[in-house]
Each structure stands twice: as C-alpha cells, then as structure tokens.
C-alpha cells in the first residue's frame, strides 16, 4: 500500500476551561491514505472536531505529531503552505459575508496562490458550475440558502487545489431539505478520488462513500473499520450503543 498522506501519531490535546482541564484527545493515532474517504463519527464531545482541527493546526496539539504529505505540522516553517494543501469545510460555512460567492472563491486564490484575476475568476466559475451554482456568482452569502452557502464553501476550499479535504460536520447546520445537495457534491468529490476526512453523522453518505469509518468517544479512537462492518457488526459495545441511538430513534 502507498504511503499514508496523513499520519496522526499519539496526539494529545487538553483544553483549559473555567470548569477545569478537559482532556479532549487522548493519544489518537490514525493514518489516512491518498484517495481515501474516512468518516469519523462519535458522540458530541468525543473529540472528532478537535482531531480534524488539529490536522491543519487550527488547534495546537499538546503532544504527539501529525505528518501531512511528508511534513510534520509541528515544526513546519510555513504552516500556511500546508494549510493551502488542506481544504476545510466548516459546520457554520464561514463564508466571507462582504464578498460575493465569486469573490469568496477568488480571494485566497489571489492572495495565497497569487493567481491573476482572470485565472482566479475562471477557476471560480468552473467550481461554481461543479457545485451547481453557476448562476449565483454575484450573490452575497446573505442572499444564499444554507445549502448553497455550504456548496460555495466547498468550492472555495477546492479553489486552492488541495490534496486533502476536511469536512467538519458540513450538514449539521442545514435544514433537512438542503442536506442532500451538499452530500451530492461531497459524493461526487469522493468519486473523483479526493482524499477526505469527514466528521459527520450522515450514515447514508458514510455507507455510500466511506472507505473506512472511525468511531471516537471520550477523546479516543474506539474502532476503525469499514462501513459494512460498522453498521452490521460493530466490534465494541460503545459503538453499538452509539449507533443504536442515532439509527433507531
């Protein structure tokens, strides 16, 4: 098998809060291979989002190491260069409200990738078409629905030509009828061979796209397995209990 594109080694992360120290990640180790789609599930507070945010160093880990594409993010001289290779999609979309859909997609291309205006615009238009929003280029985020905003956010991340895409609960803030349009885009992306790490409870998506499933609880990876195995015959009791709660309610 090929070299893993992401190697997460024994990562620990503690948060200091007013209620004391929360040990969010307790020695997490995970490898993601190029072209793989890994879906991380787990109850809230289990550390899935923290793990994802550690990968592009939006959170600093306390110990352990994460190696992305051969470079350790811990001692990376230019974290910005690594981040440009890792696209991230947020639960709250985080589009820039003062820019149009097109402007959102063009900004980082211009600032980080130093592309010409023409080049950036062409790329942005192609991506908008790809996420099915060709006619919405001149709309501001405030004029778009949640599903549309999230698709613009995906296009914005893709505009940097990332090698890896991280999805942090991309559909949780969406109305149910908009979830599908976002998942369709993600499925298409997965089919195109993008390396994706997705934190999501969309089991339909997981079943259809995931190569491996990771179940986390209390800052630990409980189980790494294939979707079929997870849904039909989970190894651990805690996994079973969790799946029971989200699948049969």
């Amino acid at each position, binding site marked *: 098998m090929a070299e893993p594109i992401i190697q997460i080694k024994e990562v620990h992360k503690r948060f200091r809060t007013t209620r004391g120290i929360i040990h969010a990640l307790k020695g997490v180790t995970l490898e993601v291979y190029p072209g793989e789609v890994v879906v991380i599930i787990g109850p809230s507070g289990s550390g899935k989002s923290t793990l994802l945010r550690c990968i*592009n160093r*939006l959170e600093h880990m306390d110990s352990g190491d994460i190696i992305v594409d051969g470079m350790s993010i811990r001692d990376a001289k230019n974290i*910005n*260069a690594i*981040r*440009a*290779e*890792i*696209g*991230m999609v*947020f639960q*709250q979309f*985080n*589009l*820039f*409200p*003062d820019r149009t859909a097109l402007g959102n997609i063009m*900004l*980082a291309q211009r*600032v*980080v990738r130093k592309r010409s205006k023409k080049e950036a615009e062409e790329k942005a238009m192609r991506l908008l078409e790809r996420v099915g929003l060709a006619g919405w280029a001149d709309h*501001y985020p*405030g*004029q778009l629905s949640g599903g549309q905003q999230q698709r613009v*956010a995906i296009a*914005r*991340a893709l505009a*940097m030509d990332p090698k890896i895409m991280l999805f942090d609960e991309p559909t949780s803030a969406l109305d149910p009828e908009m979830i599908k349009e976002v998942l369709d885009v993600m499925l298409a992306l997965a089919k195109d061979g993008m390396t994706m790490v997705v934190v999501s409870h969309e089991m339909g998506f997981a079943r259809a796209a995931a190569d491996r499933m990771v179940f986390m609880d209390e800052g630990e990876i409980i189980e790494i397995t294939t979707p079929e195995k997870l849904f039909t015959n989970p190894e651990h009791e805690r996994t079973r209990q969790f799946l029971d709660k989200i699948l049969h309610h």
Partner: protein
Amino acid sequence: MTGERSEPINLDRVITWLAGLPWWVIIITVLGVSVGYSVLTSAAYLDIISFLADDPVASTEDFYNVVERLQPRVLSGLAVAYGPDEFVFRIRPPTFVNLSRDEIEEITTTGERDGETQVLVEMVGDEIAGELVWEEPDFLTLRLDDGNEAYVLTDRILGQEREPDGCTDLDEHCTVRLQIRGGEVTGVLIAEDDYGVTVRTHDPEYLRLSHAQVVDNFSGVAGELLNEFERVDGILIYEDDETMIVQVAEADIAEVPTDQIQIMRTGTIPCPSDMIPGCSDETFVSALLEDGTEVAGALVDESDDLLTVMVAEPRMVLLQKGDLLEDSRHPEGCGADDEGCQVSLQLGHRVLTNVASHDGDSITVLVTEPVFVSIPADEIISQEREELPDGEVRVTVQRSGQTITGVLLVDGRRNLTIDVDGEEVRVPKESVVSETREPEGCTSRDEETCHITVTVASELTGILSGESDEGIMLRTVDPVYRIIPLSQIAGDFEDLEPELLSQENNAVGTLVHEASDVFIIRVTDPEYETFRRERIMSEQRGVIPCPRDQDPDCEDQVWVTVRRRGEVIVGELTQESERALKIRVPGQMQSVEVALNDIVYEDRSPDGCTTETPGGCRVLVALANDTVQGVLTEETEEWVTLRTVDPEYIVLRRASIEEERRREPGQCALNNLGACDRGIFLTLRTTLMGFALALLMGLIGGLFRVSSNPVLYALSTLYVEIVRGIPLLVILLYAGFVFSVWLRDNVGIELSDFQEATIGLAFGYGAYLSEVFRAGIQSISKGQMEAARSLGMSYTQAMRHVILPQAIRVILPPLGNDFISMLKDSALISVLALPDLLQMGRLYISRTFRAFEGYNTVALLYLVMTLFLSLLVRVIEKRTALPK
C-alpha cells in the same frame, strides 16, 4: 369629475406625508428655516460668518501683485485762511454781470434770501442773419458775415425770414434772418440804477479742509480736486511739514480815479461766516469809466480820489510735499515768511520705463532700441564694406527701392522737383536709378503736363549682421544701454531721465523686485514661440550687442527673422466654429486651436466628416507660411525658441505709490479656499488631519489590543487606559507645551501650533478609536479568521482581506460619532492660541461686544457641520450595507 377628485387626494397625501415625518425632522426644519432666514437677512450675521471664515476676498485676480499709483493732487483757488489746523479755500470766485437798461426786457424778483434779492432778468432779443449751413429740427447753424458760425437753438427763435423764400441748407445759397429771444440771467441783484443792474450770477464757493484731510490725500473732497498740474511756479505763501500753498497767478489790480467814473455800482461778496466766524464781507465794485471801459471786482482800497479794485483774484494751489519731485527756490532757501519767495515745483511721480532687464542689484535700461533692416538682394545696387576695429563690418549700401510718381515741375541741374499729389518733392539726380516720362521725353517747360516716374536709390549704412543669398541684414541703429545700480534709483533717479507718468494712473503687473525704496513691476510678460527647425524656409540673424563697456561679462543676443513653412497638424476634430477648428493631437494635453484663415489645405477622413460623425473625425490641416521675429533664447538641433515679445518692466519709487493692492497666491479667496487657514477652515483642517492620524493610531492600537503578543497587548492597553483617564484638554496642553518643547530641545524638530494641536487631538482620540477598532475586530466571528487561515492566508493577510473589511462596516457608525465629537472637541485647541472657529468667534465678540450674535453664529456653524456629518455617516452606512 376626475380632476376635481384628484386634488383633495393630493392634499391629503401631503398632509399624511408631513404628519408621518419624525418629530425631530420637523423641529430641525422649522429651526433651520428660521435661523437660516434670520442669518441670511442680517448683515451682522453675514459679517460674523465672513469673519469666522477667514474673511475670504472674492478673487485673487490671477494671483498677480497689483500696485496702484495715483496722481499727485493739487487743490487750487484763493486761500482765504490758512493755518496749522485748517485751510479755507475759495475754490470758485463769485461772478458778476453788468446789464444795461437797453439790454433788459424785464426783471422779475424770484425770492429773498439772507437779505438779498434774487432776480430773473430777461434780456432783449436779438436779430442775426447769415448763410444757412446746417439745419436740424432742434438747431440751426448760420455762417455770419464776419465768417464765424452761429449755433441757434430752435426754441430760441421767435421769427425768421429766408431768402430765397423757403430755402433749405441743401440749396446753394440760403440767407436766413432770425429774431432770437433774449437770454435769461438769474442771480442775486446787488445794485440797480438808471443805467442798469448788476447781478451776482454765481456765489463764491468755499472749501474748508482740516490739516489731517490734506495730509491724508484730501480725503472726502475728491470732487474739488484739480489734477492738471505737473509743474507749479509761483510765490510761496504758506508752508508746513506736509503742505505748501503757492500763489500761481497774481491778482489783477486796477486803480480807478474817482473823477473818471461815469456810473458806479456796489454790492457785497459774502464771506464764509459758517467756516470763518466773524469774517467780514468784501465789497464788490463795478464802474463804467468815461472812456467807456468797465472795471469790476472786489474793492481793495478806497480813498477820496482813487478806488483800488481787484479785477482778478490771485490763484493759489495747495499741494502735498510728498508729491514733489523737485523743489527749487529763488532766492535759494527762502521760505513763506520771506517776501516774494519764488518757487518752482515739479510734481508727479517718476517712473522708469523701458527697463530691459533687472537683477537684485541693478537694472538695465534700454536707452535706444536697435533697428535692423533687411535688404533683398535684388534691391542692392552697390555696396561698400569697411572692417571696424572690433571685428564688425560696416556696410554702406546703395539701394533701389523708392519709386516716386508725379508731375515734373522743375528739371534742374542737380535736382528734379516733382509734384506728388500737391507736395513738392526734390530728388537729387545722382540718386535716380531709372526714370520714365509720359509723354516720352517731355520736360517741365512743355505746355502739356509732364508725368514722371523715378526710381530712387537710397544709401543705407549699418553694421552687417546677417547675409544670405536672399539679401543682407544691417543693424542701422545700435542699442544703447545703461546699467544703473538700484541704490542710485532709490536716491531719486539721480542723473536719469525718467518719464513722468501723469496720464496713466496705475501700474499693474507682476511685482518682480521690491527693495526698501524701489519697486520693479513687470507690466508686459514675455512671449515665446518654439518651432521645429525643419519649418524654417529662410532666416536672417543679427547680433544685438550688449553693453560690454558697462558689464564686461554680458552676452550678446541674437535677433532672428524667420520665414516659416506652415505647420501640418493631424488629429481628431473636437470642435468646429465659424472661425476656428479645435484639433486634439495625440500625445498632447490640450487641443490645438487653428484659425480658419490660416488654413491653406484641409483633408478629413472620413470625407466631409464633422464632430458629430460617429467614430470620430480625423483631420489634416496645413497652415499658411508666416514670419516670426524675435530674440533667440534656445536652440537645439530640432527646436528653435524665439522671444517674440520682450518683457517690459517699470521702476517706480515707493514714495510715489499712493495705494498698493496686492493679490497673492497665498491669499484666502473664494477662488482659492485652500489658502484660508483661520476660523472654520482651521477647525475643519485640524479635525480632518487629526482624525486621519487618530484613525491610524486607533487601527494600530486596536490590532495590538487583539494581538496574542503580550507586549503589544500590554502597551496598547496602557495607552488606552491612560489616555482615557485624562481630559483631552490636558492632553492638548501636554502636546502644546510639554511634548513640543521636548521635541524641539532633544530632537530638534520644531512643530507648528497647528501640528501640535493635530497631534494632541489625534493622540487623545487614538485611544478611543483603538477601543472602537478592537470591538469591531472582535465582533467578527472566529470562524472568519479560521476560514481564512484554513485557506492558507497568514494572520496579516486574513486581517487585511477578511477581518478588517468586515470590521470597518461594523465600526463605521461609532467612527462617525467619534468624528463628530472630535469636530466639537477641536474647539479646545483654542487654548493653544490657534485661531479656530471658537477663538475667532471670541475675537470677534471682544472687538464688537456682540456676544449674542457671535456665539449664536459659532454654535450654528458647529451645528450645521455636525448635522451634515451625521447625515453623511448615515448615507455611507446605507451604501456600504451588505445585501440581504
């Protein structure tokens, strides 16, 4: 029906709309209208507003310096009284008319005043006859028998006879005999007897001048001034430090033996008792002597057998010593107390014109201008050349040219005398180059007139200054210069022959030099013409020698006459009129204007296009050849520049300047508001500059406040906390009296009051703005920063492109509010002695004690500015709002 109904609906709508307005709009409108009305209709308020706005003048008049010079002023008349405090002048003597009985038709009394009787005397009519020359509905002109012409108003004509009957001025001969109504004489009846009456037709007019008025340019008596004097000769009769009275015409006094008097009448000449209390009237005497002569005038002396009468009053002039250029006296050094002190005074202001150039120390006066003459080759008959010691060549040219045509009168041995249109012209035979006679071979002795045409050679001598195939150029008159040190000019233009500019009132131009005593003004600006060398068809050059004897380092100038090929201009037609075209030439800022008269060839593309033609209209025009001449100022391989119009300067003494008005570029004026720097302008400028600086400080402070760097955070927090705890007034005083002094002593930078105030305001407001920026940045969700960073942007890039643009939208309203409070707080800068709006208002009030109007206006101006600003902030807020 519909029309009737629609009206009340519209009215309803207006009322509803009015009622729907917010209460504060209504109050502000009512207040604004009433205050605005009272302000704009009140001269006092306008005056204050103008004062608070740095009293701008209307225009800076092209930013030229203007110096106005007035003429010397002289008052003339009879000095009735003069002394250290005041003068009383009889500027108009009374006039008396003697009328004999047989001239008088009727005397009517018209009134009584001051015990004197006013009368209207109608005179007996007259009869005149003469040749009718001219006739108009309201007047006739006759040529009388003695050759004079008489001009008669039609309404004075009582009756007329014409011979031949009914003839007009168009007929060859038309003799007219007119009966004319007599004239009327009005005035004061001063004497009446069997022989006739004496009437004072004009009362004497007196003028009293206080000494101060005389010194101060005869102010207030402008109408009584006589300006015609340039030279005053006469007897000095009064003199003090500033004024002189000179008697320029003697009294004409007649002595009449009483036994020769046939008829005598007397009357009074009233004295100006309102001006000279206790003065006594003079007596007027009019006497007809036995020999038929008449003597009339003021009675000077009276004895049993002799009357002394002043027939003509002496004339005196009052003048200011400041107007004198020259004061010579005979006997030398005599004064007003000496009997018969003859003075000869030169009035006027000396101005040196024809000043060719100047520098700080001296001027060069062109005493004689050089003259250049071009002689075409075909006019040269012969020439003689002589080398001069200084290397120049003197040429004497026999030139054919002048042609004389006329009637031959005398064919003498040496000369021909020719009648040219009634004028006799004598032509030396030796200078005749060719002649033709008509009829051929005729002489002056023939009975028929002998028409002759001769071509005459003329001799011309000059310095060769240019030569080409086409001819030669001679300098026939050399220029003469004088270089005069300015110090000499200051001392009364010694030894020069300045012009007296008595006709011209003022010298207007650009002030180019100003010394303690002398002004040099450029009254004509030089003009230059630059053209391509390739346009030159032919040229002739001459040298204008400089005054090397006076200035050894001087450089000769070159005089050039150029025949130029017409220019070809290609460009876009932008404007077309009946007289000219305007063409925009690519690569040139301004369109070129071409007069249609100068165009010899024109081509348009597309054919016949105009400015209206869509897609533009390209034109090519060729201009006619022309000639330019001037002094060569610059020459390259490609270009030639000539000074076609020389600058003209005049030099005048400061003492001769009556009034001086200057318009300078830096003057506050309506067309130059940038130069206004007091009052409302200072307030606005300090606020704008201070706020710009405060924004910068606030931005930096705000960024530090959200920074993760503890040092920066602590620094900015310290700044914010300290400044927010100190009154702005104290900060301003620190800036003005502590910080600026420290900076001057330790760094050596001197700050102006304005800079101190601006820095103080900015420092104080920077702290508030830091907090505004901090709040603005923190109001942007963390997700924005994360999204930007996840895309690979650095912190700085994310701040600049993502966070700040959003933060500024958020903080715009609080920024606007802070700007408004800064405008108001800028009133505090008056403690640094800066003339801001408030300070100027207080200054005005301290001068006029109009506190009510003064503070009203100050408050109103602040109010207007802040209301306008809050409106502006609101508009900006609306326009930058994101679409939802």
